[in-house]
Structures are given as structure tokens and as C-alpha cells.
């Protein structure tokens, strides 16, 4: 299971069976250039692998305005 902190929505989402960043983005219906993804202080490109139990930040980049 991967825990996703989704910003700016402020939602916490739990995803099962997602092993890569791109899989998480697909599940959230986001293209790689529509959000930045980070694990702790590290930015992740969409080809990076994730380990079950990890928590990542997905921050949509479109500013309202």
C-alpha cells in the first residue's frame, strides 16, 4: 500500500498495487507534468519505483489564477 498526501486538496489517499510513480499518477488521472511527486525531501521522476508502506507527496501544479 502507498499513502499519498494530495495537495492542494489536502486529501490522504491509500493506493494498493501501485509500484511506480507513474502508476500512482495514472490512478490519480494526472499526467507527469501536472504534478510534482516527492518522498520526504526528494523529488521523484515518474519512472521511479515505490516500496509498499511508503508515503509520498503529490502536489498538483496548476495554480488557480
Amino acid at each position, binding site marked *: 500500500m502507498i499513502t499519498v498526501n494530495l*495537495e*492542494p486538496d489536502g486529501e490522504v489517499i491509500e493506493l494498493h498495487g501501485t509500484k511506480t510513480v507513474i502508476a500512482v499518477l495514472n490512478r490519480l488521472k494526472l*499526467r*507527469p*507534468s*501536472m504534478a*510534482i511527486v*516527492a518522498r520526504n525531501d*526528494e*523529488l*521523484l*521522476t*515518474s*519512472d521511479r519505483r515505490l516500496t509498499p508502506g511508503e508515503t509520498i507527496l503529490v*502536489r498538483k*501544479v*496548476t*495554480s*488557480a*489564477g
Partner: protein
Amino acid sequence: MKCTRCKKLACVSLPSHHSGFCKDCYPLFFTRQVETAIRREKMFTHGERILVALSGGKDSLALMLELKLQGYDITGLHIDLGIPNSSNKARAKVENFCDMHDLTLQVLEMEKEGLPIPEVKAFINRPVCAVCGKVKRHHFNRIAREGGFDVLATGHNLDDEVARLFANTLRWDTAYLSDQGPMLPAAEGFVRKVKPLFRLTEFETANYAFLKGIEIHSAPCPYSGGASFTNHKKLWGELEHRSPGQKFQFYHGFLKRGKPAFPVQEETSGVTLTPCDECGSPTSVGTCSVCRIKATVRENKAKAEATQG
């Protein structure tokens, strides 16, 4: 993915540039894009004084920090709109940021100007965002002029510019299409306006902001009814995904080949601008639109108070 520059593990992938960068090389890419924008569009020089409009969003803060790192003479200007539960937070963010990075900041309070935005919403019978935008542009220009600044810089990025251009193209708004761009020269009563981030996408600015520790988490303005360009931005996100580089080509092609095809209309319409009787800002009708809005708020507020009792 490996960094295009140093071959370490990349943290940002940029298909439109056929590259990826690690956390040390990415800021260099960002800096180079801003340098190119400033140089090619002849935005400003190291000898000029630059006023930077700071809303508190990631783009304006990233711009401010980057211009400081490039050694420019910059002053930030934040407008406190006076919206309860919102403006105070934006202002605190800007103030903390400027403190932390040792940046010069001016704050203009709409409350003290006699035109807090909640009163615009309550007493002016027009969409609040249209008036708010007008008021902000008015004061940015006025303060730049009065403070003797050479140029006003804003944090608009490529996505902002593309979304706006797209909307105006759908409407064939020829007035817009004839005089928009990343650098608008000074004109009678108006300072030069520049957008040094216009070559960078929202994604690229967001990565820079993250790596530079700029905290961007913030609640949207309570009056924003879902920003108007958001749908166009989504469409363009999809287009860009299918053909990376499309956004930049569309905007760049407009500047090179589209814009020159629309003759500037203002010059032929024959309006002459004179300083506003009250505030000195350029206007064609004696008292400028912002001073008139202020007067209307005052009148309608007095009327409302009279009927209340």
C-alpha cells in the same frame, strides 16, 4: 532516469527539453531559462530598479528569489487586499519569505487605500475578480511610477500565458492579440512590464519552488469561483503530454508570426491620456476608473448605512 548534465540520478524529467536534471543541476536549467528570457526580450539590466509583484504564490516568490540570486536590484510589492481569513495569510507568507531571504518588501493595504476588496464585493455591481484585478494593476503601476522604478515584473509563467492567449484566440480578441507579450515597453504614464518566467511552465516553476524550499501550500481566495483558465490549462496539459514542446511553440509562434499580423489599435483610436485628477494615474476621462470605483463604494456604503438606520 539520469541527469543530462552530470549523469547522477535525475529528480525532474523534462520531455519538452529532451532532458532530465538532478537537484543540483535543475536550478541551473531554471536560471538559464530566466537569463535567456531577460536577454532576448530586453527586459531589464543590472543598472535598473525592478519592482516585483508578490502575490504569495509560488511563481512570484520563485521569481523574486531567482532575480536576487542573479544580482538584480529588486524590491517586492505585496498588496494586502483586506479579505478576512485569506489576505492576512498571504501577507504573512510574503513577509516571512522576504525576511528569510533578506529581500526588500513594500506592503500596500487596500484597507488604508479606502478600497478593501470585501467592500468592492458588497457595493460594486460587477464581478469582484474583474475589479480586483484592475485595482491591483492600477496600484502596481502607480507605485512603480511614484517609486521611480524602471520596470514592473510579475510571475506569469508559460501556462498562464498560453491559457490567456488561447482564450483570446478563441474569441479573436484583436485588441489583446495586438499588444500582449512577455515585455511591454513603457508608455505615457505606464512603466515597462515584464514576465521573466514566460519560458517556464508551471511544472518547472513548481519543481524549482520545491527544491528552493518555497512553501506554496495555501488556501485559494474565498472569492475565486474556480479560476477561469483552469479548464484551458487542463486541455493544454493533455496536448503537451501528447506532443512535448507544444505550449512553447504555440506561444513563441504567436510572438514571432501571430502578433505582428494584428495592427496596434490603440494608436489609431485617438484617445489621449492625461493624469487622473485624484491619483495622477493615466486616464482618458479626468478621474481614473479606480478612483471612480472608490467613490461608488463610498456612496453605496453610505446609502446602505442610511437605510439600515
